[in-house]
């Protein structure tokens, strides 16, 4: 028999106090004290999600303007306010205190002579122009990836994130299917790596969290179907694909199949 103190500690350690595992839910139905703690934890999370904060819109717009301006993205190194009053870099102040003025003059003369020497060795010659940063058309998968990143930031539950990763994996598969005939080995290989990462460290991790949070395993059904389709399609495509794309498509098929099997196992175990 677990004590109320232990139950309350477990409640406070949950990712979301509202989504309690079965064994805690059973206890909560008959315990007013633990139910009150759960209510307070839910209320606390609600307040924390709504803490007031000022707007930073002006600073953001200024920064966006700087980022979008011509020239390198990083133009100046930001200087944070110093906690030492004068704002002067500490090693400089140390040198000023310890090095005599005459030594400074000798040093300056030495630097001047050295600079002239360096200039002479590197005097103006024809130099290649600095290449412009890439400015190609926006890629559809990039736009979707940004959308999914934003979606992940805004999501509150493992189920929401699971759905996002599932859609993301499907989009990467579609991209691979669209380009496998013309893509270089490196390009298609990157897509395969992206798919593997999205499924293995995205989708599967969220699935585990969903189970931790007592989700219904039936929620995996849609994803299992999609993964099975991906595995079959990618395997079929790899048979007739150009040699450069075959290995990558097989990797996608294997990754989808592995995730499908793992999800099925989790769902069956939980269902049983």
């Amino acid at each position, binding site marked *: 028999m677990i004590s109320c103190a232990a139950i309350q500690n477990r409640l*406070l350690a949950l990712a979301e106090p509202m989504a309690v595992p079965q064994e805690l839910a059973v206890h909560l139905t008959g315990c007013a004290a633990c139910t009150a703690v759960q209510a307070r934890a839910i209320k606390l999370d609600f307040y924390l999600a709504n803490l007031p904060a000022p707007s930073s819109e002006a600073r953001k717009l200024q920064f966006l303007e700087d980022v979008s301006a011509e020239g390198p993205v990083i133009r100046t190194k930001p200087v944070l306010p110093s906690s030492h009053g004068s704002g002067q870099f500490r090693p400089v102040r140390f040198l000023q205190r310890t090095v005599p003025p005459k030594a400074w003059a000798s040093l300056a003369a030495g630097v001047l002579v050295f600079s002239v020497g360096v200039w002479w060795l590197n005097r103006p010659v024809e130099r290649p122009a600095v290449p412009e940063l890439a400015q190609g058309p926006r890629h559809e998968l990039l736009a979707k990836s940004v959308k999914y990143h934003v979606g992940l930031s805004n999501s509150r539950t493992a189920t929401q994130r699971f759905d996002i990763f599932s859609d993301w994996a499907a989009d990467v598969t579609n991209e691979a299917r669209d380009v496998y005939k013309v893509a270089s080995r490196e390009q298609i290989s990157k897509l395969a790596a992206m798919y593997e990462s999205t499924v293995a460290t995205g989708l599967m991790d969220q699935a585990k969290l969903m189970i931790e949070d007592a989700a219904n395993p039936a929620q995996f059904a849609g994803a299992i179907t999609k993964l099975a389709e991906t595995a079959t399609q990618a395997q079929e495509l790899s048979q007739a694909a150009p040699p450069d794309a075959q290995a990558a498509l097989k990797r996608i098929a294997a990754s989808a199949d592995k995730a499908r099997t793992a999800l099925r196992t989790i769902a069956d175990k939980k269902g049983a």
Partner: protein
Amino acid sequence: MIQAQAGDRAAAALLVEAYWDRLFRWLFQLTRDRHRAEDLTQETFLKALAAIQSFRVGSNFRAWLFRIAHNNFVNTKRSDKRRAMPLLDEVPPADIAPGPTTLAEDRETLERITQAIAELPREFRTALLLRCEEGMNFRDMAEVLQITEETARWRVFKARQKLVKVLEPE
């Protein structure tokens, strides 16, 4: 992401647009100083954009970005004494939907919670806000804070344990 890594400013701007507010909000709750939070947010993006080549496409960009922000925050904190917390009046009222409690009660509770958060050890505050304000899972929190998932869970637990007391009936 691929285009941002290739140096496309428009793609970089999209990332800034998508994450600025969330990052600023978290840093503001940690520092309780708007200007400092803005400086830290800007510096985080500068560092992230400068190092964007090292970001692995397909992994979690938010966790990567918040990790840079956290390192920045910890580094500046080391050379900075604790700053005074502004009164709640200096920040706008929270956007809380009207519930059974009155607005005055909400405000008073928020004030007490804000005060209690400020009194939490920094590690607990950082973890709790990532969980409750950002909705981050323990795995991502572990990545941001460079700790284990268990430690992340434990920090959230300890922070909640202290803060629920604020909501206990008097």
